């Protein structure tokens, strides 16, 4: 069971020096912009921007390669499914039809479909470098304080922080239980679907009770230390905003405004070259 998950990677880069709050605001703005737009020009600009930002973060490609491969497979499979279900979705969207190949039966290939699928893949891909960057350059404990700073109640922010804190522990529990059950001949990685589902219960139940016990212990410890007594709380990892933070937020904000203007000035979120 390979442990390949994204986590914080420490580097002395300008992106790392930004406060978590700045990065969170930037991430939210960027996600919003890419969510609304389907304009090829905007997507290309945002894509170039996110690749540029990635390169100044000093994160090397090979450090996050597994996630990018995983995502690439996922995005391509999704695009394939879109084509299989609706080979002429592009024609519906762009309202013209330039046939390239007649194909077999309903599986034609039109310029519009090719362009639509290019945009679909682009739309999914653009967000990935930024999201990955956000994850690997923001320390988990600072992330919680950032959530609180942008207005999320501190109890919820603390829950997020707990989740990040306990992922490795729960993973360890899961592995111990799975190994113990495997030693007894209860395997979840092979056999029929039904058998695997039945066997997975033998892991789920011990994991459930272990976790409930953990919840009990941790919440008692927090209660004993007076957690939740006040309406507000301070964060050990919180840093003050500096000039570079305001500049970064300014850039993110203007990029978002730009993308909304270009996307919606002609009344459609699609860029139509046909």
């Amino acid at each position: 069971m390979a442990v390949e998950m994204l986590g914080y990677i420490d580097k002395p880069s300008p992106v790392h020096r930004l406060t978590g709050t700045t990065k969170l605001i930037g991430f939210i703005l960027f996600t919003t912009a890419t969510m609304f737009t389907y304009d090829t020009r905007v997507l290309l600009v945002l894509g170039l921007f996110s690749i540029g930002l990635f390169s100044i973060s000093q994160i090397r490609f090979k450090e996050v390669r597994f996630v990018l491969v995983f995502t690439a497979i996922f995005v391509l499979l999704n695009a394939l499914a879109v084509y299989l279900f609706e080979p002429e979705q592009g024609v519906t969207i762009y309202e013209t039809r330039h046939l390239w190949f007649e194909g077999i039966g309903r599986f034609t290939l039109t310029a519009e479909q090719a362009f639509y699928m290019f945009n679909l893949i682009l739309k999914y891909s653009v967000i990935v470098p930024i999201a990955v960057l956000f994850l690997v350059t923001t320390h988990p404990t600072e992330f919680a304080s950032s959530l609180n700073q942008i207005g999320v109640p501190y109890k919820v922010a603390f829950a997020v922080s707990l989740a990040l804190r306990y992922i490795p522990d729960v993973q360890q529990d899961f592995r111990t239980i799975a190994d113990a059950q495997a030693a007894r001949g209860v395997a979840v990685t092979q056999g029929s679907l039904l058998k695997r589902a039945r066997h997975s219960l033998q892991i789920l139940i011990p994991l459930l009770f272990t976790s409930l016990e953990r919840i009990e212990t941790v919440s008692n410890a927090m209660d004993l230390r007076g957690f939740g007594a006040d309406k507000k709380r301070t964060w050990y990892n919180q840093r003050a905003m500096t000039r570079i933070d305001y500049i970064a937020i300014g850039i993110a904000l203007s990029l978002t405004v730009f993308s909304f203007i270009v996307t919606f000035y002609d009344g459609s979120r699609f860029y139509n070259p046909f």
Partner: protein
Amino acid sequence: MNSFTTKQIVATGIGAAVFIILSRFAAIPTGVPNTSIETAYAFLAFMAVLFGPITAGLIGLIGHALKDAILYGSPWWSWVIVSGFVGLGIGLVANRIRLEEGGLTTKKIILFNATQAVVQAIGWIVIAPVLDILIYAEPANKVFVQGAVAATSNILTVGVIGTLLLVTYAKTRSQAGSLKREA
């Protein structure tokens, strides 16, 4: 937020961590992209009944968003929202089942299953596809088929595995009012 107890906060955090681990290591793929038999939803349904709608809604939201972020690099928001909705919806029956007090009757099991089926059907067949169309302009028939597959497999998963979790847990609780004064 003041009624959000420390125990619920911790249950949210650790619950989200368990949700992530289960989605990552205990999911069985079905062949349709983005869709697999998710034991994580059986767990989510259990937490909903034990800790109520706010905790479970947050476990769904936080767990799914972090899972997507850690594994794919970016959250798939349309489905993240549905996970939150499912936790919230199932959690609404927590007060009527009172799992802490044991005594899980057949009536309560039926109530649980009827609720989870309705909530998940709305979530996966209505909310998720509509958001996919609005955000990603994906073809309607593709997202509705995906939604229907997800709904079927998740309703079955919660119906079988989720119910078994509830029954197993209820057996460990001493029933309210089970003590009698000796004559």
